[in-house]
């Protein structure tokens, strides 16, 4: 009796296994297995959360079996999230937004994979993206991320304030800029003519490199890889920043301000000048955020006489690209590339021109862009004039030293020359 029931039970189990197996096989034939692609992105203005979600939905329409799962983090948390994801056996994020300052580190430690093979096969016209953008995201011939965001800084000024001070246009040289700031202050048109993001963070390094660029070149290291902040344009930049702070031309709040704070000061009419990323263009003309609608002008950066002859400007790059994590499962890597190719394609970037400046020259010069962005010529000029921050594998350690000493030099805690020398000495000691 017992045996009989056992046989029935085993028979039933076998039948159900067969049935489920058969139905699974049938399903597998009917529809491909759903793919979930985990993408790490930055919560920011420009290519915002809603823009990315829309892109994800469009991609899903083209590839119904692929779901994009986004994680949006603020910029200061991106690097640590990529690092912890790299430490896991299988990547927590298959596609990550990679900042150009991490290119050397990610390449040296193998956190993301070089994309040369994919680009060679699938990107028909790589020259359609400016070489300066490729350079920022490549190292030693390896392209570590596909350009997605062609972010760079613009020079913004308030034409109404300048007109009140008797100036018909913005400054072309550093001397003119200084003069305009002094007049604006002397005539009490604005208490502090300039506000920048000098909080002890990455934004400060961007402003320092760009200012050095305005004085000739933005190189903080020489060709041999030695730090040179205590000489040439880098030292002049430090002296300039200190002078603006000491003479009350730069708002003291700059030392505690990040980029959005500095942008808000400009948009609320508290500053006549702002040097910032491209998102300010949208803010200054947005009635809900700005008190200076119609007064803001986007311009090329003033430069020291006789420098930057080719570009007549000096900006800083903030390029970001999409990269594939090295520990992404092999089966997902082709899908990861498909998403990257989709999101960075000229066709998709052309749909979101109001959000960001496109990486593709063909899109940047399209009639649509010209219609949407009346400053497109200045944008192109500043993009062609970008300087990059140092491409060193231990960049974040180097950056933290630069941030500390530049901040102290501006606030006057230590003299400029001492700060520059100490900065150089400390960075050199990292390599000894």
């Amino acid at each position, binding site marked *: 009796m017992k045996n009989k029931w056992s046989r029935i039970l085993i028979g039933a189990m076998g039948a159900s296994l067969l049935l489920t197996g058969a139905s699974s096989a049938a399903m597998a034939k009917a529809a491909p297995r759903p793919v979930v692609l985990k993408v790490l992105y930055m919560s920011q203005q420009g290519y915002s959360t809603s823009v990315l979600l829309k892109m994800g939905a469009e991609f899903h329409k083209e590839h119904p079996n692929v779901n994009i799962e986004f994680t949006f983090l603020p910029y200061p948390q991106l690097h*640590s999230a990529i690092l*912890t994801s790299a430490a*896991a056996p299988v990547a927590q994020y298959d596609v990550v937004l990679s900042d150009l300052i991490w290119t050397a580190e990610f390449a040296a430690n193998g956190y993301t994979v070089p994309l040369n093979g994919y680009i060679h096969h699938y990107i028909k016209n790589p020259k359609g993206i400016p070489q300066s953008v490729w350079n920022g995201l490549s190292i030693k011939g390896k392209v570590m991320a596909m350009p997605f965001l062609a972010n760079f800084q613009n020079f913004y000024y308030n034409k109404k304030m300048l007109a009140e001070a008797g100036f018909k246009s913005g400054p072309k040289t550093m001397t003119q800029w200084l003069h305009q700031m002094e007049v604006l202050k002397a005539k009490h048109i604005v208490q502090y003519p300039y506000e920048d993001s000098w909080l002890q963070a990455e934004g400060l390094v961007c402003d320092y490199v760009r200012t050095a660029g305005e004085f000739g070149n933005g190189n903080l290291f020489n060709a041999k890889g030695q730090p040179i902040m205590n000489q040439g344009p880098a030292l002049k930049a430090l002296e300039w920043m200190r002078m603006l702070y000491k003479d009350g031309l730069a708002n003291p709040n700059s030392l*505690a301000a990040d980029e959005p704070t500095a942008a808000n000061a400009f948009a609320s009419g*508290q500053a006549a000048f702002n040097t910032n990323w491209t998102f300010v263009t949208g803010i200054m003309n947005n009635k809900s955020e700005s008190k200076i609608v119609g007064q803001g002008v986007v311009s090329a950066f003033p430069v020291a006489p006789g420098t930057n002859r080719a570009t007549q400007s000096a900006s800083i790059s903030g390029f970001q690209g999409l990269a594939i994590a*090295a*520990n992404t499962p092999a089966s997902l890597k082709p899908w990861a590339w498909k998403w990257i190719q989709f999101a960075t394609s000229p066709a998709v970037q052309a749909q979101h021109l109001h959000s960001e400046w496109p990486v593709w020259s063909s899109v940047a010069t399209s009639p649509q862009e010209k219609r949407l962005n009346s400053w497109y010529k200045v944008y192109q000029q500043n993009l062609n004039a970008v300087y990059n921050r140092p491409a060193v594998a231990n960049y974040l350690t180097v950056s*933290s030293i630069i941030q500390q000493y530049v901040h102290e030099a501006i606030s006057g805690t230590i003299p400029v020359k001492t700060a520059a020398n100490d900065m150089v000495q400390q960075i050199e000691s990292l390599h000894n």
Partner: protein
Amino acid sequence: MTSMPVESPPKRATLRQRVFRALSGEYFWLYLLLLPSILILIAVILIPMLFAFQMSLGNTSIVVVAGRGSINNQWVGLQNYLSLLQNPSFWQALRETLYFWVVSILIEITVGIGMAALMNQSFFGRRIFRVIVFIPWAIPTVVNAMLWGMIFDGNNFGALNDLLLQWHLIQSPIVWLNPSALFPQIPWLSNALSYLGSNLAMNSIIVGDEWKTLPIVAILVLAGMQTIPHEFYEAARVEGASAWRQFRQITLPLIAPVLTVVLILRTMQLMRAFTLIFTLEQFGLPVLSIQAYQQAFAFGSFGMGSAVSFLIGLIALIIAYFYIKRLYREEL
């Protein structure tokens, strides 16, 4: 003469016997019910802690080999700890952390007890007052940080600056979140305070942090106060004791155990304070917790980051030891 039978002393049970008795006797169900919690504690606290300690003794780096990520830990012994102790920036971070802790604790003890004493009185609207006082504690830390970021904005339109300018208490806006030296017109004092970790940003952040945490301190102290029998105070009043003496000799000794718990809890929290400082200053105010984060997650030096974390734990443990020791001495 008959010899008295000598009772041999009971044999001491072996460890295995004692464990068996403990698990099989009246405590069986107790241990069984505790088991899930113990396993969770082992999984999420003990094992990660041991792993972090192991990392602190190594030169730890993240490596991805053949498509698999892992942590490579090369044993260096106490090298990370020694490097930290020889680094001046570690000592500055330690001084800033200790300043943050001392000032916060002093505020919490004085103002917290004061608030609790006030809430312990009976007055019209006491319940509503208690609810209102408790609201800041319910606000998420990041939201609190953003809120204080707007209050302390260094422009004219910053809430605090705007108020002070309207009242003509200041001539120009103050950059509250800039870690600038205090009293720059008195160099020796300014230098001494900077050395001790006191600057404008640090004090502003203490204000923001206390606004959020004072209510929980006050509520806990209030709970302690409410356990004190009224008769004690009545007897003291009959004896002619002043209010101050009643507080010093009745209230304070009887709330000491609660106060010790609060102090230990807050010391642990203050030693690892991170969110408010990082949200407002990023790496500009490098207290120990910020330094640990920066070492591990910005520089990728997980060994050094773990070493800083263990030193934070050790310091908090030493402080807690003195609190507890003092409490037991007073009870005796």
